[in-house]
């Protein structure tokens, strides 16, 4: 399905996760963050850039792993993206939610 963000049609799934990372840019990230009620600081952007890099390398993401990355500790990760930090951060970053095989 498609969703109009910043006047452009963007491919998303039922839960609003982008399904085509090449359509993502910073402005769209800002817009997705607004929907999640998160004002983005430079710390948020450092985390978002890190998880996008991991995604490009096809490395599976987990909260524990992000906590050990040296980019952010888990406490700060929860304070930057409250409640379900990995879900929220991946959504803003325009990458799929971490999944299993079925």
């Amino acid at each position: 399905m498609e969703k109009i963000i910043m006047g452009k049609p963007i491919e998303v799934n039922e839960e609003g996760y982008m399904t085509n990372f090449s359509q993502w840019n910073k402005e769209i990230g800002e817009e997705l963050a607004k929907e999640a009620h998160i004002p983005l600081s430079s710390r948020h952007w450092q985390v978002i850039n890190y998880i996008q890099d991991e995604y490009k390398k096809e490395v599976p993401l987990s909260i524990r792993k992000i906590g050990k990355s040296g980019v952010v500790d888990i406490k700060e990760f929860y304070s930057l993206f409250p409640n379900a930090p990995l879900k929220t951060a991946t959504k803003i970053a325009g990458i799929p939610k971490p999944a299993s095989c079925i």
Partner: protein
Amino acid sequence: MKRLVILGAGTAGTMMANHLSHELDKEECEIDIIDEREEHYYQPGYLFLPFDIYEPEDIVKSIREFIPKGVRLLNDKIEKVDAEKNLVLMENGDRLHYDILIIATGAKIAPEEVEGMKGDEWHRSVFDFYTFEGALTLRNKLREWEGGKLVVHITEMPIKCPVAPLEFSFLADSYFKNKKMRDKVEITYVTPLSGAFTKPKATAALDHLLQEKNIKVETDFAIAEVDNENKKIIDYGGKEIEFDLLVTVPTNKGDELMERSGLGDELNYVPTNKATLQSQKYQNIFVIGDASNIPASKAGSVAHFEAEILTENILRYIKGEPLKEEFDGHANCFVETGNGKALLIDFNYTHEPVEGEFPFPGVGPLRLLKESRMNHMGKLAFRWIYWNVLLKGTHIPFVSATMQESGKHF
């Protein structure tokens, strides 16, 4: 004379030894395989051992039995790989030169990664079933357990056989029903992901199983700690889940040898080209099975399909030809759903599991993503196939290394 060395004589390493001993001329290339252990474990059996469906002797055999003649098996511990010098350094001081190295050292659990997991309750009320010892002690516990809160838990992805914990929950439901004590057991499935099923087609086809079997699901649970004293698991967001019996899948990591040798990533998996299976850093190193970081499932079927393509690529590498970029992440797994039934799933890097027939389009006899007794028989028959066909590197008829799209309902 060239020397090819295989590290690890588990599922993937043993298959490669068998494939390559057929294909390579012994006058031109000698093959060594190294493993410190004496026993080969049929790892899918760890799922059945706790429920008294398999006996220990069903799932353990000697490594030596499956290594072909003409391949030298070294039963020693490896200290380090020096990839710059093409050397394997043994703990006993021996140095082994290689022209080609195949890394097949697998993945294992690392419960020490989570605070308190390997605490006082480890193998008392906190169990794993990803090791022989864990599965066996869990069997003994289940035989005498009188019921309470059973929590089946995944620490973090990636794990070997990602559906195993779900299968464990289904089989537990059947097991306690058969023991006429299902009403005394509360089963909760706890996952760091956003659902027990995360792919749309599988969710649509299978979500009802959890309700039918009365299994509660807790999602988005990122474990911080096992509280041994109060018997609960606590997540980073402060959520707490109590247990009387915790069956957990700890963090999975590649072998520590990869860390010692500077060959692994932060989870000790070796960065590998996902289409050719060549190491990203060293041209004469190849990686197969759970040891690699490729985004395929960590499963025996994946290693089996990889083995067919890797064999071809080793031959090409020796001849100086370009490698085949053919591996598509193909996996094919039986999923036990309890009560004598199972599902079959077939998927790859780009296609999620869907409904259909396997291996013959329109015919079957196996049904994809649907419960059937036939699929369960397939899973049980698979143990025989594993010991007698798969490890020997024999091609399984009608099942190709890359995924077939026909017969599937995309």
